[in-house]
């Protein structure tokens, strides 16, 4: 599988702050890749390096086969970017900005443009200064989705969108993926990432701490189990990988390392299972685990 983005050992400091500290990132062509991390962990800095706006101190980066610093213009023909905070020119209308961005990239599909404006319920005749935060984001999103490009780089693109528009956004991303486009999605809305992304990378303090498919990542974490048993539970506390065990009569709640799930289920069925709920870890739990590790560190 070809790679749309490969980054290895990226370093970038601003004065004494080490924004990126050996960051790695791989995004395969045609996938939707979630890019997660707490505020200030270096997501936007990474994206700005990938766009050639910042120059990395060391490390290697390739975007669509180009060096993002020396070959920025070539790479950008096939890239559309949506920042988390879109600023527009006060006296240009939204429609003018959409067309400008389209022309400055690989071109714009007018039919798709019209369709997107309708779906996002955007008034393209308003001037930049009169748009609300959410509507400014829509201007950039319409320009990105309507552009003829291979890679979309979206940096917290849905900030300020209402839940209905959030849904439109998610459908658009799914459509883009179906067309074979690659999407790097930096987001704090974990349900959105869980819904859309094939693979995710979690970064912390400028370093990648987890990377893989959601199934892979879940494997590394705990599943919560709630069971009602026929008889009293037996020996659960001694099993490896069991945490937060809570037994009330015949009702059992516990967390188990996903690797050890099998042994726990066997032990439960020895007592006779009346009902069983097993919940895989949500991305939120996954994320919080890394985040709390950081807080503890």
């Amino acid at each position, binding site marked *: 599988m070809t790679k749309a983005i490969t980054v290895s050992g990226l370093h970038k400091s601003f004065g004494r702050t080490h924004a990126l500290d050996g960051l790695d990132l791989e995004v395969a062509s045609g996938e939707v890749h979630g890019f997660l991390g707490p505020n200030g962990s270096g997501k936007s800095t990474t994206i700005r390096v990938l*766009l*050639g*706006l910042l120059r990395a101190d060391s490390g290697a980066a390739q975007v669509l086969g180009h060096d993002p610093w020396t070959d920025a213009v070539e790479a950008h023909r096939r890239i559309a970017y949506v920042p988390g905070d879109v600023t527009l020119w006060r006296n240009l*209308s939204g429609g*003018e900005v959409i067309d*400008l*961005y389209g022309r400055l990239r690989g071109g714009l599909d007018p039919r798709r443009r019209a369709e997107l404006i309708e779906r996002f319920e955007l008034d*393209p005749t308003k*001037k930049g200064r009169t748009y609300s935060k959410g509507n400014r984001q829509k201007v950039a999103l319409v320009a990105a989705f309507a552009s003829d490009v291979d890679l979309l*780089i979206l940096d917290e693109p849905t900030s300020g969108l209402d839940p209905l528009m959030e849904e439109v956004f998610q459908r658009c991303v799914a459509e883009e993926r179906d067309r074979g486009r690659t999407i790097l999605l930096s987001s704090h809305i974990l349900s959105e990432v869980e819904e859309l992304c094939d693979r995710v990378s979690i970064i912390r303090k400028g370093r990648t701490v987890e990377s893989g498919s959601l199934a892979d990542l879940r494997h590394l974490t705990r599943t919560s189990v709630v069971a009602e048993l026929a008889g009293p539970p037996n020996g659960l506390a001694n099993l490896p990988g069991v945490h937060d065990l809570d037994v009330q009569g015949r009702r059992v709640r516990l967390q188990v390392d996903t690797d050890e799930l099998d042994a726990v289920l066997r032990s439960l069925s020895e007592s006779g299972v009346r009902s069983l709920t097993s919940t895989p870890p949500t991305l939120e739990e996954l994320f919080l685990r890394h985040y709390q590790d950081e807080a503890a560190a």
Partner: protein
Amino acid sequence: MTTFALRARPGSSRQLAGTGTLLRFALRRDRLMMPVWIAVNALMVLSMPNTLESLYGTPAERADLIRQMGTNSSLRAMVGPVFGDSLGALTAWRVGVYAGALAAVMSLLVVVRHTRDEEESGRQELVASGTVGRRASLTAALLAAAVANGVLALLLTAGLTGQGTTGALALGLGIAGVGMVFATMAAIVAQLTESARLARGLTAAVLGAAFVLRAAGDSATDDGSSVLTWVSPLGWLENLRPYADERWWVLALLAGAVLLQGAVAYGLAGRRDIGMSFLPTRPGPATGRLGSAGALAWRLQRGSVLGWSIGFLLAGVVYGGMTEGAADLVGDNENARRIFERMGGRSGLTDTFLASMTGMLGLVAALYIVASVLRPHGEETSGRAEPVLANAVGRLRWAAGHLLIAFGGSALIMLLAGLGLAAGYGKETGPILGACLVQLPAIWVIGGVAVLLHGVLPRAAAAAWGVAGTALLIGWVGPALDVPQAVLDVSPFGHLPKLPGGSMEWGPVVVLTGLAVVLVAAGLAGLRRRDMTT
């Protein structure tokens, strides 16, 4: 977008809640800007008696001046009529209108900054959500302007007491009064427009109109009695006649205008929604034709290029029309002639006048080029450059559009100034155009410094204004103050041949142009290598 809906009127005492806090906050935010404006204004006025003393020391010289002003209508248009021959009266004549205009600019900036600017940026929403009355912000802004104008009036009165206290008080109050007329005018305009920039522009346009009306009135009559003069607040200041049998009742006109305009602003402010305005924003086109970074740069700067072009053309026509008369006047005064000669060339007084006017326009054009060169810097710091550069637009291409407008635009406005001068003067088109264009290398050096700062030290880019300001100060004030040549040489303008009249020297022109090229190249090289600021 406006709402005139009848709503329950909150208790009037609560409408001003929080004014004191907001006023202190406004004064703190303006703690640098306000003192600078006041100091520059006061220095300009207070240094005038000495300057005039050296220029028109004897009664004969003063009588001569007054006779000249009586007959030369184009000079009256520029500075107004003389009403007395004391140093105080001459000071009021020479700088009164300009000090009033300066106080007006300060006042309109202060008021718009604390009203419409705050609303436009969204900061006002947070402020207004506190225990702050509906009219507190407007009141605080007007009080801040009143504090600034009050301090100015105090300084002027105290500083001019040597020429007579009564006249000093009249001039100080008159200048501060004009300031407050435009403070309340800005308060009205800030209710009408949604954009602070437009509010500043419109109020400044009213000020410009006031100046033009006074100028037209004064060119028609030699005693300020024209209706046109009486329509203009700047004309009132002149007709207050400080140091020449003051007409105190004119102050009532100023006070009346302040009260009336203030009442209108208050009425409007209480009747609209926050962030909204009485002039609706027109919708724009649903599709656009902009297709390149260069086209975008032109779209962003074309309004400013147009404004500067019109201004320079008109200034050229006006100065051109004054040339004959000005030369007559200067010819009678040894000191003035010496200053003009230091500012300009050596032969022929019309040539010297034209040379000093083209030199002055060149200095002002340096402000244009700095504003234009720093436009990409504004784009960068506002976050608008980032998504543009994330497209297939190289940094050099992005900057080049703006630089073309900056450097080419400076040539355009100087050319238009030259055409205006030639049209107004009616002869010597070739030499006048040459004199205007010969300013360009020095203008470009200033522009080059701005490019270098933006490219290499983006955080210090605003220092380019300081560079242009220094050149302006040296060029305007230097010759009159007998500043040593070494200081005059710091400014690139000091090295230009004095045209028309002087001989054309290619050496400095070539060297300055080369220097500008090197500065621009170094700046662009820096821009390519550095991180974009975010």
